[in-house]
């Protein structure tokens, strides 16, 4: 079969090309219409949002809706059981109605409280809310029972917490230097007299005798009789308490020089501070340990909240 070669002339190619380029598809309204519809759809998504649907049926898992807020079935069951002390299947229809009525009342009051902005305006509500948040963040930690090793470690670190305070009945005698009976008495002379008095006291002389013969008087610092250690520390002062704390019952101290004269302490009665052992203190240690965990969780939570919050202080204010 013979093949015939066709040679196109350059001029005809150019004409055809021009014709192809010049040709336009038949203009259809479909494309602009599609564009308009698509444009409106796109814009519509941005311009409108779904209106909130009115809820007309109580969803599963709820027993009631109060202004759109649900009362959970689980809460209702718990409340009914707590109020009647029965299992939920034993709670009568009347009791259920009463409990639900109370729960709806409570929900209405809570909603009203929020509208009245009580969390912002009422101290009791704020305290309850802050306490609630702290309890919530502490709950996961507190759910784990501490071991004895953890409690003992805490006990060792806070032994002073389980130490009972001691008490003392101490007679504080003071020799005022250069008193009205001997105006020229020096400190050295007074110290000699005081040493002699101490000797007499230790030998069995009565305090009354020493007071009459050496010019000692009761300082009045321990006039209230038996006092706990912390009170004795306040009344005697740092220097005298340090001496008294080391004394045993019946002991007489060496003379101690203070601004008002030379003091001699006579320990009449002494009960030393005692530390409870771990077994005795375990219940208290358990409570303190959990309290510490709760505080740590609250601190941690606050640190997170502060890191996420924007807090501005007025000029001149500090926290």
């Amino acid at each position, binding site marked *: 079969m013979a093949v015939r070669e066709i040679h196109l002339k350059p001029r005809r190619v150019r004409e055809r090309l021009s014709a192809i380029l010049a040709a336009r598809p038949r*203009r259809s*309204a479909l*494309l*602009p*219409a*599609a*564009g*308009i519809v*698509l*444009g*409106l*759809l*796109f*814009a*519509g*998504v*941005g*311009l*409108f*949002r*779904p*209106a909130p649907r*009115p809820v007309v049926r109580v969803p599963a898992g709820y027993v009631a809706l109060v202004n759109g807020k649900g009362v959970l079935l689980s809460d209702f069951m718990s409340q009914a059981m707590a109020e009647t002390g029965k299992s939920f299947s034993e709670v009568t229809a009347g009791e259920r109605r009463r409990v639900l009525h109370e729960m709806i009342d409570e929900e209405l009051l809570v909603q009203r409280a*929020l*509208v*009245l*902005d009580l969390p*912002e*305006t*009422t101290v009791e509500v704020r305290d309850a809310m802050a306490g609630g948040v702290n309890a919530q963040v502490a709950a996961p930690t507190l759910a784990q029972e501490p071991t004895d090793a953890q409690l003992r470690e805490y006990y060792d670190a806070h032994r002073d917490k389980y130490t009972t305070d001691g008490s003392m009945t101490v007679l504080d005698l003071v020799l005022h230097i250069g008193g009205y009976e001997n105006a020229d008495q020096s400190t050295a002379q007074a110290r000699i007299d005081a040493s002699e008095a101490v000797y007499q006291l230790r030998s069995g002389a009565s305090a009354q005798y020493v007071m009459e013969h050496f010019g000692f008087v009761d300082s009045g610092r321990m006039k209230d009789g038996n006092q706990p250690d912390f009170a004795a520390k306040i009344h005697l002062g740092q220097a005298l308490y340090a001496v008294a704390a080391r004394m045993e019952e019946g002991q007489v101290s060496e003379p101690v020089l203070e601004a008002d004269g030379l003091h001699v302490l006579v320990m009449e009665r002494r009960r030393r501070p005692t530390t409870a052992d771990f077994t005795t203190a375990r219940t208290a240690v358990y409570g303190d340990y959990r309290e510490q965990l709760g505080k740590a969780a609250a601190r941690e939570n606050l640190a997170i909240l502060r890191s996420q919050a924007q807090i501005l202080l007025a000029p001149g204010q500090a926290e």
Partner: protein
Amino acid sequence: MTRRRLLEGVLCAALCLVGAVARGAPLTDTANVSYSTWTVSGSSSGPSVLLKFLLPEALAQSLTATGLPVLTTRKLGEFVLRHVAVGAAGRNCPAVDQGYDIGIVDPLAVGPALHGFEILFRCPVSGALTLHDHALFDRSAGHVNFARIVKDGRVVEQLFTAAHQELRLPAAGSVPAAGFGQYLRLGVMHLFRSPAPLCFLVGSLLLLRRRREVLWLAGAVVVGYGISLAVSTRSWILPRVPLLEAYMGFLVALLAAMITLRELRQPRVSMLGCPALLAVLAILTAFTSHHLQMLVLAGAAMLAASLLVANLWFESRRELWLVPVVLVGFLDGFALPAALEPLQLPQRSQAWMVAAFDCGAALAAVASMVLLLAALSVLRGRLRTALRRLPASELAAAGLGGLGTFWLLSRLYN
């Protein structure tokens, strides 16, 4: 001088006027509303009225500029107290101190965009009550308070306006609700106080070429409001008001592009310019977190491109320019549903309120266009000389384009 030239001149002047009045005002008047609920209850010692007054944040802020110095919640509450009252037997009922450290006005937590206050009035004598609301009417033109009166377990909707600041409740019997006419009037006033739809409708007269097209235009407006009514009364969707205002601005700019398209020697420049600018803006917005704005811009670009292309391709099919007219009616029809949203009214109550309002707005739109055309024919002879050399159409398009673009951009990222 042709009749067409005269029309362009007058419309240009009207647009300038609307634009000058509009300035930075809201494009629709949905922000200029407040809400009140008056709960009337009776007791042996006399009736009491618990008033819950809600004020949008934007309106509260505007009070600072109009004379309420350093706006605080307390001052705003005092302002409300000074402007509301309940009367019985010709005397004002005193507002009751609500205990603790609240005082007479109890501020409420009613959401981020609203301020709420509660005031309890206790009347010493029984009888017919008169509710007074004078808040904001003297400071903000066209302000409306949507009131709900709750009495004997029945709820009725009422309106407080500048012309209607008192409401008398009968001692016995039901409280009358605001009538169809009141919402109709509200719709009429709404249109005249909303510069964007008004600008668009006045500007759209520039596209008229034949007398019968006036009917098409009026029909398109009515159809727009009608579709809006059908959709909004179903309570399926609610508008995002700032974006809706931005889109309204876009439609005004699109109208300018359509007017320009007709005048240009190389219409493709106008045909591509407007959509291209919108597309670029949409692409730029896509890189930000404003995804809804990006969607609106992309949709606007597509609509503009399709409409302008279709206008050029099918010059004989002139009804295409009615699409934006329908859209303006449709979008403006959502003004009242948006304003009523905080009240969460039952669907049935809201439906007839919106119907009356949309009827009023549509009537006002059609009437304003007809009146403008009628005025034009009266003034024809007098304006002939003045408008001979004025490039009115170009000026009107430029004004519309500028206003529309300003509204689009200023509302889009607000």
